[in-house]
C-alpha cells in the first residue's frame, strides 16, 4: 500500500542545473508537512511538481496510489495557495470562491450555498461583493485559503502563504490554518523558510538543502536531535562542538573537548573510540551555577553577557574552547570575567553525522 502522496526518486533539472535530486518523500493522509529550507533549496519546485506546473525530469509522483506526474494541473484536484494569493482581480470575493465549483460544474444553487458556507467559516461573509483590491492583506489571505478549500480538494498546497503578512497577523493566521487542518482533517503541504512557523504548525518537517532532504521528522525530534550539522544550524541556535572520542561504553561516549576539558555524550550508532566527530548542544540546555550538577560540568569564564529581555545569552570561554549558554537571568554576582560551572546532560549533546 502506497502512502497518500509519494515522490519516488524525483529529480528536476532546469537545463544543466539540477534543482531537485533523487527525492523520496512520503506524506500520509491528514498530515501537515512543512518543507523548510533556505532560499533556492528547491521547495517551490517540489510544490510546483506536485501541483502539476512543473514536470519531473525523472522519477514518479503518486497521489492516493495513482501516478499523477503526467496529469495537467487542472486534473489534479489540489488546492494551491500562492504566496501573493493570486486572487482574480476582476472578480468579486464570492466569484473568486465560486470559481473552482463552477469548474466542477456544481449546480448553481449549490454553488451559492457552498460559497456562503465557506465564507462563513472564515468569517468574511460580509465582504462577498468586494473586489480583492478592497481587502486587507489578511483578508485576501483568508479568501485565497477559502478558494483553495471550497472544492474539497484532496490536498492543500501552500507556498509561503504568510510571507507577506506582518508578524502579528502571521501568528494569528498560523493558528487559524492549524485549526482548519485539525477540524477538516486536511492534508497540507506547506512551504516556508521560517523555522518557527514550521515548528509550531507541522506534524512533520522536511528540512531541505540544495534539493535534498537533510532530515524529515516531527518538530520535536528535529529540534532536539538534529541529525546533520545543516539541520542543527538551520533550526534554532546551537553550539557546534568538534571533539575527539576517547572511549565508548554502554552508549555513552567520553569526549575530549580540547583545552583539558572532557564531557560525556549520548553516543549514536557507529561512533567508535579514536574518531573525531561534531556534536550539537543547544544553548538553553546548559545550566550555569557555582557548583557542578549532573554528569557533565565544565569550568568556564564569562566572556560576555547580552541582555535580550526575556533571557540572557552568555558567552563562555575556557582557553580556546567556547560555548554560548542561554538562561533566564544571571544569579549571584557573576560579572564578566567571573568563573562559572556549565553543566548539561549527556543526552542533550547529540552527535551529528556530518
Amino acid at each position, binding site marked *: 500500500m502506497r502512502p497518500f502522496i509519494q515522490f519516488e526518486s524525483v529529480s528536476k533539472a532546469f537545463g544543466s542545473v539540477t534543482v531537485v535530486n533523487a527525492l523520496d518523500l512520503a506524506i500520509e493522509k491528514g498530515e501537515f508537512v512543512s518543507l523548510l529550507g533556505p532560499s533556492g533549496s528547491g521547495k517551490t519546485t517540489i510544490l510546483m511538481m506536485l501541483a502539476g506546473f512543473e514536470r519531473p525530469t525523472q522519477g514518479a509522483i503518486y497521489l492516493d496510489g495513482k501516478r499523477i506526474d503526467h496529469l495537467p*494541473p487542472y486534473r489534479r484536484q489540489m488546492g494551491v495557495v500562492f504566496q*501573493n494569493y493570486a486572487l482574480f*482581480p476582476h472578480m468579486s470575493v464570492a466569484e473568486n470562491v465560486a470559481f473552482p465549483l463552477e*469548474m466542477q460544474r456544481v449546480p448553481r444553487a449549490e454553488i451559492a450555498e457552498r460559497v456562503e458556507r465557506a465564507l462563513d467559516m472564515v468569517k468574511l461573509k460580509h465582504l462577498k461583493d468586494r473586489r480583492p483590491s478592497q481587502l486587507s492583506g489578511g483578508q485576501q489571505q483568508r479568501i485565497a485559503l477559502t478558494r483553495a478549500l471550497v472544492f474539497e480538494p484532496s490536498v492543500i498546497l501552500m507556498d509561503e502563504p504568510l510571507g507577506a503578512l506582518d508578524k502579528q497577523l502571521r501568528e494569528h493566521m498560523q493558528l487559524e490554518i492549524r485549526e482548519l487542518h485539525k477540524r477538516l482533517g486536511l492534508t497540507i503541504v506547506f512551504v516556508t523558510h521560517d523555522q518557527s512557523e514550521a515548528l509550531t504548525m507541522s506534524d512533520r518537517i522536511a528540512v531541505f538543502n540544495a534539493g535534498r532532504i537533510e532530515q524529515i521528522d516531527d518538530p520535536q525530534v528535529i529540534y532536539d536531535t538534529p541529525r546533520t550539522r545543516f539541520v542543527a544550524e538551520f533550526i534554532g541556535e546551537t553550539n557546534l562542538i568538534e571533539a575527539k572520542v576517547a572511549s565508548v561504553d554502554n552508549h555513552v561516549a567520553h569526549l575530549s573537548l580540547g583545552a583539558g576539558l572532557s564531557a560525556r555524550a549520548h553516543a549514536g550508532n557507529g561512533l567508535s573510540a579514536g574518531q573525531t566527530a561534531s556534536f550539537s548542544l543547544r544553548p538553553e540546555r546548559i545550566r550555569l551555577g557555582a557548583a557542578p550538577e549532573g554528569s557533565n560540568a565544565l569550568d568556564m569564564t564569562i566572556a560576555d553577557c547580552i541582555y535580550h529581555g526575556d533571557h540572557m545569552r552568555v558567552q563562555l570561554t575556557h582557553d580556546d574552547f567556547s560555548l554560548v549558554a542561554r538562561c533566564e537571568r544571571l544569579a549571584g554576582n557573576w560579572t564578566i570575567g567571573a568563573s562559572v560551572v556549565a553543566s548539561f546532560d549527556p543526552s542533550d549533546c547529540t552527535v551529528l553525522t556530518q
Partner: protein
Amino acid sequence: MFRALQITFGIAIVIFLLMPIFAILPLAFTSSVFLNYPIPAYSMRWMHELTTADVWRTSIVNSLIIGSGATVLATVLGTLASLGMRKGALPMVSLLRTLFLLPMVVPAVVLGVGMQIFLVRLGLASTYLGVTIAHSVLCIPFVIVSVSAALQGIDPSIERAASSLGAPPVTVFRRVTLPLAIPGVVSGAIFAFATSLDEVVLTLFVAGPNQRTLARQMFSSIRENINPTVAAAALLLIIGTLCLGGLAALLRWRQKRSALMTAPSAI
C-alpha cells in the same frame, strides 16, 4: 534672478507648445473666408461646410470606414501576435518584436513608395481594401505595444491559480487572461484608430480620389487653397483624438489600479 529666468523660459515653451493647438480652434467658427485673426464675427458657416460639402463629408465617411477596418484588422492580428510572443516559447522573439515595431521607424514615404508599387501589382491600388491594409501595417505596432504591456502586467500565478482550481487552458484564457488583457486591447485599438485617422503619407501614395480620408483632404486643402473648413476639420479631429486619448488614459489608470490590487501589500 535665475529663478525668474527659469520661470519665463518655462512659460514661453509651454506657450510655444500649446499655442498652435489653441490658436486654430476659434477659427472654426469664423465668419470670414480667411483664416485670420481678429475674427470678425462668429458663425457656424464652416462647420456647416464641413458636414455638407461633398468632398469633406465623403472624406469623413472614408476616414471612419478605413479607420474602423484598419483598427479591427490591426487589433485582431496584433492581439494574436502579442499572445503568441508572451510566454517566450518561440525562438527569436525579440527579433520578431523588432520586425513588428519596424513600421513605426521606416519613413512613411519609403513605405509609401513600396506600397504603391506593390499594391499596383496586386491590383489593390486605389481600393478601400488596399488603403485599409496599408493603414493596418502602421497600426499593428501600436496594438502590439499596448497589448503586450497589458499581458506583461498579468501575474502568471493568477493563471496558475485558475488552472489549479480545475480550469483547463481554454477556460483559463477565457475567464482570466482575456478579461485582464481587455483594457490593453481596447487602448491598443484606440491608438490604432487614432493612427489611421491621422495618416496622410501612405494615403497619398495608395489611395485614389474615392478613398480620400479626412487627413488627406486637409492636406490638399492646406496645400491648394486653405480656408476655415480646415480649422473646422481640425476642431473635429482634436475633439475626436482628445476623447480617444481620454478613454485610453482612463483605461490605463484602471489597469494600473488592477495591477496594484494584485499586489498583496495594497490594503
